[in-house]
């Protein structure tokens, strides 16, 4: 596949897999999830093996997984390791391997994935590795989306130069790989009574006492995210405090706010729509993308402004500026959505963003991005977006979207990222997005802790907040003397341009305890992350050792610390040679790139388009069910699109270069003056000379390179003179009768859409087309001047103009719009439809 640009291990398939499967078991209490993943390995080869497995975890920092523990079960013995600085851990691992011992190293990679290295698993040996993590669940608009990723989908780009991975960490995909996956989740206390469902897997529910247990009701594999949706939750703020077991006299705090404020704003949107049409989106994802776009467009009002763009290797903009959300523009946009396919090649997101940002706007614009996010170079993209001060709102789709990348992209630009899995309805996510995009912007967020608390460290609050989306803030405080004095934690901020402080949330405090010190470790993780981000820019040695000490004290696997375990083997048991390398390949994400569909009912499209490159309209090739080659002018079989019936006829009529033969006796070809007197034959379909700029405006590559947003029509297609000429040399029975026919004839997209959505609103299509053509026929250009001149009426074929008949409303509307038409130029307002017309 063209977007898999990474090293592939040879001959993995055909050998027995080293990873036997993954079993997950989790418990949800309040807003905290504790999950254990049990990975089972077996060395099925005849030599000692070094197994590497790169796997994803829910993304951090706020709302992502915080690794708590790693345990290794080998030979029935359960071993615990330790957290060490990366260099030390790596050295220990290498030494252990070269001495013939077994060693396990778990490392956090640059992109947030994790790589496990299991060195010197002997032939036939088995090993179980238990990885435990904690995660705060964040309600969004009354709903929690709990997600466990199980595979890493192929990404576009270079994993080493752009993804900043080391070669052994780079995930590889094998479409034949298959690993079983099983999961059980226990919901405790009040969570056991929430509404819960899974859009990704068939699940079964059983109640044991007060608790609810969720199990898989189907065989699962490591090929898609496992998703649980908890809905109908109350939007409330709450704060937890708990003793820190690793530090005397210290308590850890976590305040979770659900901001609410009175200021309502239903401001108009300024949304630049950008949809990913790379090949990884083929299948389920592009279907979901179209539904998301359709939902978005339908929700627009007249006060909203949008632009439409799609990208792959390059970016294509439908509009040069922003359209208002009028009925006509929406109809045109819906038409554009139908043409969105996963056929644009790779995923050059940064370049597409640059170009989309350049679309002229009034100043404050947002980008509405629909994608699966499977790229390596996300840093570049984030930088571009932040510099442009555009907020990015992402709808992430697919069975395994790049969660970390997309959440970061949204968060760092002040936007938001919402997810839609295959089989989920898209509308709720779109509605939430609208809410956020229209909402007042909240800034200068500040947390006010109870007066009696002395904070030792508090997390810097995120820069932006949205109503209904929970945000978390961690802190370390002196152990309070009087617990009863603790009341609540408050969140203050400013809204839009006002400098008034507004109270956004009040979180009542409650005490909690944990034998594994979970809350304190999560707070330490947040503190580490902050220190790391700051330190990255300063690179001070003192700060680094402070950070690392923190990570080691709280046993956190971070960007600078690894988990290491060495298992000394008895002398007779040690390996004598270096182990063979085995990289565990990823399963292909279900529905990725069109490989099968995640939802059983979604059928794969049967009719694929063949892009011809000569015009915008795809060439639909009939499947077996239809008749084969159709004769000229024959009625279209249902599987053909009507606009292509005539095209088939044109295929016969047109020669390769576009020059056409006129089936007219030589003596009549002398002067153009006489062309009008020729009575076109019913059976002959004639064409115009497309190489003549009077009749046809070809696409101009230098114009296409102009920055988007510049004025100036870049019309491509048949000119007024050309259309008039065509009508004069063809019998009226061959004239186009539908908008699609007109398009097929080469009439520019904007003219056709102007006819269809502006003139044609609540009018009969054929009447509109016929009236338009008769108006064109009236142009009567002289071939060497721009003015029109009277010409003797042509007998018979043209049944339109009878000067004495009073003009209908339709006729006058068209005629008025055509004022100012030139031989080679359509009226500006029509060419710019729907930007200026409405």
């Amino acid at each position: 596949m063209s977007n898999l640009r990474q090293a592939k291990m040879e001959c993995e398939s055909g050998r027995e897999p080293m990873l036997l499967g993954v079993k997950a078991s989790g418990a949800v209490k309040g807003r905290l999830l504790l999950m254990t993943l049990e990975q089972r390995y077996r060395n099925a080869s005849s030599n000692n093996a070094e197994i590497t497995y790169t796997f994803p975890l829910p993304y951090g920092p706020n709302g992502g997984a915080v690794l708590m523990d790693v345990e290794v079960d080998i030979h029935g013995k359960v071993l615990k390791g330790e957290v060490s600085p990366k260099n030390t851990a790596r050295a220990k691992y290498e030494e252990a391997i070269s001495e013939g011992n077994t060693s396990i190293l778990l490392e956090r990679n640059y992109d947030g994935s994790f790589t496990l290295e299991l060195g010197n698993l002997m032939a036939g040996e088995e090993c179980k590795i238990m990885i435990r993590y904690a995660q705060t669940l964040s309600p969004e608009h009354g709903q929690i989306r709990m997600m466990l990723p199980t595979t890493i989908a192929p990404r576009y780009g270079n994993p080493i130069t752009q993804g900043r991975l080391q070669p052994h960490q780079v995930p590889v995909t094998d479409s034949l790989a298959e690993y079983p996956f099983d999961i059980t989740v226990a919901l405790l206390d009040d969570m056991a009574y929430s509404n819960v469902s899974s859009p990704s897997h068939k699940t079964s529910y059983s109640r044991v006492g007060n608790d609810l247990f969720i199990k898989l009701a189907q065989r699962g594999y490591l090929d898609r995210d496992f998703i649980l949706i908890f809905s109908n939750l109350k939007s409330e703020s709450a704060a937890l405090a708990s003793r820190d077991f690793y530090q005397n006299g210290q308590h850890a705090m976590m305040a979770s706010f659900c901001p609410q404020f009175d200021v309502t704003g239903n401001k108009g949107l300024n949304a630049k729509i950008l949809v990913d049409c790379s090949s990884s989106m083929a299948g389920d994802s592009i279907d979901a993308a179209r539904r998301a776009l359709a939902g978005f467009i339908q929700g627009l009002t007249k006060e909203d402004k949008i632009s439409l763009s799609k990208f792959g290797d390059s970016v294509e903009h439908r509009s040069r500026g922003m359209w208002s959300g009028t009925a006509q523009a929406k109809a045109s946009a819906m038409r554009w959505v139908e043409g969105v396919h996963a056929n644009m090649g790779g995923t050059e997101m940064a370049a597409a963003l640059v170009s989309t940002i350049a679309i002229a706007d009034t100043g404050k614009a947002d980008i509405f991005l629909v994608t699966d996010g499977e790229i390596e170079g996300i840093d570049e993209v984030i930088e571009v977006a932040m510099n442009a001060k555009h907020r990015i709102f992402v709808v992430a789709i697919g069975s395994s979207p790049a969660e970390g990348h997309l959440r970061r992209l949204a968060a760092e630009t002040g936007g938001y990222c919402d997810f839609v899995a295959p089989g989920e309805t898209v509308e709720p996510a779109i509605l939430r997005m609208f809410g956020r995009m229209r909402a007042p912007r909240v800034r200068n967020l500040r947390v006010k802790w109870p007066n009696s608390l002395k904070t030792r460290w508090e997390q810097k609050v995120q820069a932006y907040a949205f109503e209904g989306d929970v945000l978390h803030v961690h802190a370390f405080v002196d152990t309070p003397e009087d617990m009863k004095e603790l009341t609540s934690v408050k969140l203050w901020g400013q809204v839009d341009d006002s400098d008034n402080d507004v109270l956004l949330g009040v979180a009542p405090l409650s005490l909690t305890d944990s034998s594994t010190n979970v809350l304190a470790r999560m707070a330490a993780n947040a503190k580490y992350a902050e220190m790391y981000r700051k330190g990255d820019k300063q690179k001070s040695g003192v700060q680094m050792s402070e950070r690392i000490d923190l990570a080691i004290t709280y046993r956190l696997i971070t960007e600078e610390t690894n988990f290491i375990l060495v298992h000394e083997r008895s002398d007779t048991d040690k390996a004598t040679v270096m182990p063979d390398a085995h990289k565990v390949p990823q399963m292909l994400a279900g529905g990725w790139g069109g490989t099968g569909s995640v939802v059983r009912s979604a059928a794969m499209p049967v009719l694929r388009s063949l892009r011809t490159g000569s015009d915008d309209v795809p060439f639909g090739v009939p499947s077996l069910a239809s008749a084969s080659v159709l004769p000229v002018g024959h009625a279209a079989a249902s599987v053909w699109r009507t606009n292509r019936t005539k095209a088939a006829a044109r295929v016969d009529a047109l020669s390769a270069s576009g020059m056409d033969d006129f089936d007219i006796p030589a003596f009549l070809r002398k002067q153009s003056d006489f062309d009008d007197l020729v009575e076109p034959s019913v059976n002959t379909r004639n064409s115009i000379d497309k190489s003549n700029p009077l009749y046809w405006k070809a696409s101009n590559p230098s114009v296409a390179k102009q920055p988007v947003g510049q004025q100036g029509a870049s019309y491509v297609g048949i000119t007024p003179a050309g259309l008039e000429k065509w009508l004069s040399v063809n019998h009226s029975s061959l004239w186009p009768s539908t908008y699609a026919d007109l398009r097929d004839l080469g009439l520019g997209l904007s003219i056709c859409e102007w006819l269809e959505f502006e003139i044609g609103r609540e009018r009969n299509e054929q009447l509109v087309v016929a009236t338009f053509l008769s108006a064109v026929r009236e142009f009567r250009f002289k071939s060497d001047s721009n003015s029109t001149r009277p010409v003797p009426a042509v007998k018979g074929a043209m049944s339109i103009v009878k000067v004495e008949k009073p003009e209908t409303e339709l006729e006058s509307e068209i005629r008025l719009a055509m004022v100012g038409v030139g031989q080679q130029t359509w009226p500006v307002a029509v060419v710019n439809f729907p930007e200026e017309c409405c």
Partner: protein
Amino acid sequence: MPDSQVQHTLSELCVLADLPVRTLRYYVQNGLVDRPEGETRAARYGAKHLEQVLLVKKWTSAGVSLERVKALLHGEEPAVPPRAKKPGSIEVCSHLHVADGLEMVIEPTRAQMTPEQVRAFAKGVMALYESIKANADQDAGAPGNE
């Protein structure tokens, strides 16, 4: 000094090449760099190995895939038959769906076909398929067949 007698341990080679030890070991495990002399702690690498490592490093930082690097280094046939494409080039192909289970992949630029030719080709393929199917039906339906 390019002295073939000089032997380096794995850690020394890392320092010389300025690469993490794991990456070096990865190259050796995957055949990008020849195996050392000796095993485990006694493994020694010479000038030849250093040369290979530096070449691999140069190519991967230029964006060449490891698969391709391996082929370049050893002049061996990669498992996939070599194509006349530059490493890192992108192609967009069209898929002509002829029937269930029958598809043609067309990259018109490489095939050097104009859009009109592609259309003609598509029509021809469809017609060919119809005629083969029609003949098959005829044969099946003819009386006296087994």
